[in-house]
Structures are given as C-alpha cells and as structure tokens.
C-alpha cells in the first residue's frame, strides 16, 4: 500500500488503564499501532468512529489521526501522536517500555 494524504487510524484511551489504544481490522482495541487498521476512505472512517464511540465500556476519547504508511510501517504524522505512541521522554514508561 502506498502513502496517501487520507490515511488514518482510530485511537482512544483505555477506560480502565488509560493507556493509548488503536482500533484494528476486527474492530477490537489493541495496544500496538502496527496492528491498527488503516482507513483510506472518509466515509468508512466516520462510520468506524461512530461505532467506536459506542464502545464506552472499553475506551474514552475516540478520534482519528493522520498517519504515514511506508513499507507497511505506520507512523503518526503529528509529533503529539508520535509521543502518545512512544511514551514520555523522561522515563522508559508508556508504550516504549512494552517493546
């Protein structure tokens, strides 16, 4: 798959733990960005967000983020989302500690 302007991933925070999660192709919430479903179609992502917002028993604060997709590697475009996907810079906590 090539990189396009409209590539997006849906993200949220887990209700119980608060950690960053992403929606995968089975419409489950997963920890790893590499397992996230990449949306290329605005209509399908809007439908997915509506669906995801109904899963309030699992997650909080659903939204979509713009990503780059290169050689099947997903990278958030904005630094805020890059930090969310990594963890804080002052400790080895957050997602970087799970690797």
């Amino acid at each position, binding site marked *: 798959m090539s990189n396009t302007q409209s590539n997006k991933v849906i993200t949220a*925070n887990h*209700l*119980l*733990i*608060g*950690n*960053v999660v992403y929606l995968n192709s089975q419409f489950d919430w997963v920890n790893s960005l590499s397992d996230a479903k990449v949306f290329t179609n605005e209509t399908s992502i809007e439908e997915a967000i509506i669906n995801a917002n109904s899963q*309030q*028993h699992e997650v*909080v*604060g659903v939204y979509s983020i713009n990503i780059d997709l290169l050689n099947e590697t997903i990278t958030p*475009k*904005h*630094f*805020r989302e890059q*930090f*969310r996907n990594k*963890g*804080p*810079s*002052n*400790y080895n*906590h*957050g*997602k970087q500690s799970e690797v």
Partner: protein
Amino acid sequence: MYIYTEFDDAFIKARNSQFRNQVKRRVDGNLTEDEFKPLRLMNGLYLQLHAYMLRVAIPYGTLNSSQMEKLALIADRWDKGYGHFTTRQNIQFNWPKLNDVPDILDALAEVKMHAIQTSGNTIRNVTADHFSGAAAEESLDPRPYAELIRQWSTDHPEFQFLPRKFKVAITGSKNDRAVIRAHDIGLRLLRRKEKLGFEIIVGGGLGRTPMIGKVIHEFLPVSDILPYLEAVVSVWNTLGRRDNKYKARIKITVHEHGVKFIKQLVQKRYNEIRSTFTGVDPNLLTQIESAFAPPIFKSADTTGFKCTYENDAIFRSWVDTNTQKHKESDYAITSISLKTHGKTPGDASSEQMRLIADIARLYAHDEIRISHEQNIILPHVHKSDLPRVYDLLRTKNLNTANIGLISDIIACPGMDYCALATARSIPIAQEISMRFDDLKLEHEVGHIQIKISGCINACGHHHVGHIGILGLDRAGVENYQITLGGDATETAKIGERAGPGFSAEQIVPAVERIILAYLDIRMNKSESFIETFHRLGIAPFKKALYPNLKQSLKIENQGKAA
C-alpha cells in the same frame, strides 16, 4: 499543622465513598464518560496522554512526615515509584489505574489528605509562601488564614460551577515568594500599628492573556477576610464571561470593567452579606491558629556546623546556595533541590520521599513544605544538624546545590504527559541544566529564573521568568518562544517577547547566547541577570539571540505565512 476535625474526616470519607460508587457505575456502564468526567475531575482525576493522572492537594504546600510517607507508598503501590510536585504545590501521580483510584483516595484520607477541588471550575488549592512561619522578615504566618480559606472554599455551594477555575495565593512577607500578583486573588498579610489586615490583589493571572493583579483593597481587617473574598468571587461568578473560556477568568472581568467598578460591586455585595458572617469564623480561626503554633525550637552548640562549613567547600557551597535566613538565628530554612542536573524538575522517587520524611521527623520538627518552584523545603533545621542532614540527602542524590540558579528551572509536564500541551517542556529543562553544568557556569551566572511552559496555559509560569520559554506547535513542529525580563516577586512583571521562536534543537543554544551576552555586558559579578536586564533593556539580548535580525524577521514572516 492543622489536623482534621471529625467533621472533616466524615466529609472526606463520604466523598470517597461517593467516588468509589461513581467509578463502579462508570465501569459497569451505568454512567457515560460525559456523565463521569465532571465527577472524576471534582476528585482530581484527569485523563492525560498516556494514562490517568491524579492530582493530590497539598494545602498551602504544608506536609508532615507521615503524609510524605503515604505519598511514597501510593507511588510504589499504585503508580511507578515517583511523584511530580507542581507549581501549585500539589503532587501528581502520572500512572494510576481507574479502579485503583478509590483505594488511593482512601489511603490519602488516612493521613488527612485528598484530591478535592484540584480540578474543575472551583476555588483550587490555596497556595502560600513556602517559607511561612520560618522566614526572618515575615510579618505573620499566613497559613491559618489559608486553612480558613480552604475550609470556606471547599464544597462551597455557590462556587462549584464558576466561570473558570479560581486560584488564591497568600503570603505574610514583604518578599513575595508565592507569586501573589499572578493569581486570581493574591493576599498579603500586613501589620499596621499592631493591627492586622490584608492587602488584596485581584485579577492577576498568566495563561493566554497574562496580567499582573491590581490592588482592590489596601488594608482589609483580617476579621473581614471571608465575607470580602465571598463578595469578590460572587461578583465575578455573576459578571464573569461564560461564552469564551479564555475570557472567563477574573483577570478579564477586571480588565474589561476596571478595578474601580469591580471594587464598587464588591463593596455592595460585601455590605449585603457581611451580617451573615456571624463571628463563627473568627472563633474557628482561633482554633486553627493553635494548630500552626511554631515548634519548640531547640538550643544547641553550633561549633560543629561552623567547623564543617569552614573546612568542607562542597558543604559550604550547599549551605550558601540552599539555605536561607530563619527567624531563629541558629536555625536555617533548608531547600532540597528537585532539580538534579538532567532530571525532571519536580519529580521525587518514593525512596527520596521516605528519606525526606525521615529527615523531617528527626531534624526538622516534622515539617515539610512544597514550593511553587517545585522544590522541597525543611523550614526549621537547627544549624547544628545541617551537616548530618546534608550527608543524608547526599545518599539519595538530593544534595544538588542549585537553588535560585540556572538549573533550578520550573517546568510544567508539557507534552510528555499533558493532554493540553502543544510542545514538550521537560527535555528542554533537562538539556539546559545539563548544558550549564557541563560549562561549569552555573555559579558564575548566579541568580536567575528560567520558567518553561508547554502551552499557553502557562503552568510553568513562563511569563514571570527572567527567561521564559513557551512551547508551541508551529505547523506540526515544536517551536519555542522566549520572553525576557519577567518577574515573579513583589515587583512582578510580565516578560517581553524577544522575537521569533526557535526549534527544539535551537532553543538551548539560544538560551546559551542570552547567558553569554549577560556575562559579557553585566556591570560586575554582583549584578544579577535581571538587574542587567533592567539597566540595559531587551536590546542587547535580542542582538545576541538574533545576530542577523533581518534574517530572523524573514523567518518569522515565513512562519506566519505558513
């Protein structure tokens, strides 16, 4: 220090029980997030970038050893082994899990602590001079009044849904260490001809529209403080704007209507409500005051201290930098730096917290303070105990001698944690402190305050830093603006923006250029950075920051176009 009454205990227990049930209902699916969010915020629980964050109140920055030990226990049992002390004298735990928070709140209640009104549009934790009750030049310890205000404002039925948050700071000293002029209300306790009163300052604040507060009352008798505060908040609650959150703070209300008009309204409201304050409060204050009686200061020989001071240069440097004059000549106010070079400003590990608790219990009359500058204070240490205190602090890397120096940086959590942030603060602070430690220039530069915020909300107080740094998102890239000449003291001033911002890679070299320029142009070694700034203005520093001004203006214009 103040100990909860049965009423306080019952109130906290009831609130904790309610919150436990609210969490259960949220997890069970009986509350939506929209319904739950205001409830969790009322109890200090935020959802940040990577996890929940619990903000615990440390009223007027005062703690005892048992409370500090409980914070350490919470850090170990329910968090990641550390806590972050904030510019509002609170502590934040960055990694609690939702289901654990009711247990954390119960643990806090065991040592008379809570997280109520550490969030939301309410009257927040009252902050105070961290040298209260100890400073040599203090008129009176203001903390009994801070406690009175805490009790008045907690769960106040009229003030639970204010236009925005409301922050009160108090001092009893001429020297302002509580930044009272940058708070919604700043209070300065004064003594005039044996009468006690408050100078009341209103409408200060930082954030998007920084303003220095204005005097609304020059000398209010202390017995009238609660009805007067109630009148001020009541007028703002009615008049304050609710159409725009950035214009909702009282500083905008005062700015738009003028302090003269606000004063008239406050006086009118005060006249209406004064009779409803029947004298219970002065009686309550008398009870509270007894809880803040000074400790029984000891007498001891200080020869050992003097000998160590004369013979141990490292100890001497620490004493000169980290201790201040106490009202008792054989005592010292001792600041413990949480700004070890390269570490996160304001963070303390659970091990460090326990050590500080032990030291406070053994050598500091069981009193601990948190400063808005994100350091820890032992307000009462006898000089004969200072060598032992220093040796103990050294075992946990708490002996950094940098209070008031360039590495004693205030920094908000920034985009490493905060959901509102637009850029990171912590790594900039770490890099600046490491840079000047490497250059071995810290003591040569002398007193200077660098303050860093990761967004316009200004939790890092950048507007009142001698050098202020504001992190922004400029077209998807972190960008840092510099302000110069800010002042957080009794001569409070908002800093001037120096010019175009710098990238994350450029900002530390930019700060270095400012400092090198200062060293070059200062009159002599005793002229501090801010004194040089006052003497020469911003021009020489701008010249150092932007050697090619035309080039930098071009960059700025390109940035605006983008």
